[in-house]
């Protein structure tokens, strides 16, 4: 299907998480890999962490078992416990920043932490 001629939003928040994940997958496969795409993805990951922290809770957090789909769509997602604390997003942001600034090489346990954080927060609906 063709892409729409003029998108409403240049960047969707979940897309930032997806781009960051793409970079992390590359690094997990080969920790010494480095290219512009990886760099951009890490930048996007940092923006993602900052944005969800600024919002106070992960985007679109809500119970998908809400009884009325219409109410859920119109009223927006109900308030729910944040799936992650600010600490988590700060920690992941730090990991991404360090890898980006090449102050340290990507370590697998850190990558795993960042991957799980992005997966969990970007898939909550």
């Amino acid at each position: 299907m063709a892409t729409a001629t003029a998108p409403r939003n240049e960047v969707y928040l979940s897309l930032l998480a997806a781009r960051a994940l793409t970079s992390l997958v590359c690094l997990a496969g080969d920790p010494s890999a480095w290219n512009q795409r990886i760099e951009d993805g890490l930048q996007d990951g940092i923006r993602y962490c900052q944005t969800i922290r600024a919002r106070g809770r992960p985007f679109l957090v809500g119970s998908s078992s809400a009884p009325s789909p219409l109410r859920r769509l119109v009223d927006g997602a109900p308030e729910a416990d944040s799936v992650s604390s600010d600490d988590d997003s700060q920690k992941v942001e730090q990991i991404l920043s360090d890898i980006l600034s090449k102050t340290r090489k990507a370590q697998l346990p850190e990558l795993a932490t960042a991957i799980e954080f992005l997966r969990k927060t970007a898939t909550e609906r």
Partner: protein
Amino acid sequence: MSNTPEVHPSASDPERRRFLCVLAETLDKLYRVDRLLSRQRTFLGTVSAEDSVSGVDALADFLDRHREELVAGSDAIVRFLRGKTSTEAERVGRVDALVDFLDKHREGFLAGSDAIVRFLQSRASNEAEGVSGVDALVDFLDKHREEFLASSDAIVRFLQGKTSNKEERDGIFATLHVLVARVLQVHELLLLIPREAALPQASFVLRDCFAATYPGASIVLTNFYSAYEYRFEDILKKINIEQEERGRLKQLKQGGDVLCQAFADRDNALAWAVLAHEYGHTLDEGARISERIVFGDERPKLSADHKSDWLVSVVAETVADFIAARVLGPASLMPILFLEMMQPQLKPPDKSSAGHPPTPLRVQLVREYLRDFGVVTADFEKDFQAYEYDYKWKVARMKKEEQETLNQLASSAGQVLVKNAPEIAAKVNGLRLRGFDKQNATNAREEAKVLHKTAKWGQPISSRRVRSDKKIFKALRSLKSGVTKRERAYEVIAAFDEMPVPSSEILTAGWLYKFSSFEAELMKTFPGAGRKADLEVYSEYVERTDRRLLKSLELAAVHAELRNRTD
């Protein structure tokens, strides 16, 4: 029959199988949502550059012409208003002229209505951008698809069993889960755009499965992936329709059952097994099976306590599961398992989910129930294992307290259901449904082979001969010219007769075909070796399979109808 490529020694590994299932289901749903949005685009239309007449122009033109016509007859109207019309013919003439006017202009107005829709559509979106709401959804999915494909080298490595570590595999899964979450999100938003109708084949399946007990139920498409059912009468009660009005609508108690299925599964016959489960709830409510199991023959008091409500709910789910399994066999479980595997995480147990026993328990009970009829589930084993792996993986990622709640729920439901399973089974068997048995399972396996062999030319599996070719040839060879009696010859020829294949076999064969072919299709979609991933390859496979199954169900229903005709 298996078309599994040999280059993957870990093909039986539940982790790998789980990845294949989730990847396949995601691409399947992505294609379906894409196609749905594409149809919506066609329906809504777009403002074309050559289209010089706007919707407003069309409306203005329509009113102008109407006004002119009215003014042209104003003298006569004045006479009419003042009671000075000379003849009855003139009075009638005015009315006729108006009718004539409307007739003449109706066509023109309808021609203008397309432009109106296009105009309104463009107004509904941001004019400066020139895109509609549907375009925005398409764009959203396109961007996520592109990002997902950016990891296609890693996906190829996963498919070929060449990932370097667990973190890489988890990362690939996470990218897949982000895509899944967005597809599901867009699917929920589809409620806001014009709704399509369910296909008639879905009703054919239910009619075939439930035969005599099936009075017909409406099937509507919804934005929920999990199907559900409701009675129209219950809705009327909730919106405070007066008692008297409800009395007039008594017939809706049976005919008013509404079964809901996901928008995206409109053409996906394999997913329709969930409708059998939902119709199971209808039968349960009608015969008060779960209520009787919990409360006995006494009707419960209006304010039954919370524990009783929970008991009725978990028993009702099992009744519906057994009913679906009785008519469809193991295929009745598959849409639920694939849907759950596709979800990025397990829903934390809460009040709304408490009425559903945990899925692994449901699977265990259904498999035991089917075993009593000699229906083994070996053909589905790899996918059951993949589901178990997926479930454990997700439970491990839940919060501690959520895990504890889930365990408590599973334990309580397990105690109740294991104890009540024989009674539930007996009640379901007493419904005298057209059961799926060992022979159906054998036939379905053969039909799945036909789907494989004839994949190139898309042959449907709507009918089969009453006797095997071997037996027919043997009987034909026994005919002797001048010796065999005419009756015997006709008897042998009658063996050429074909019977319609039951829907339960078509759906089971469809699932078996999918299990044995989707891995090869995924490998073609992500070929690796420097070749670009092409999601169209998988889309075409899904579309071909849909078409064959829908055609099979349609032809089988027509065939059965013709055989039942007495004229």
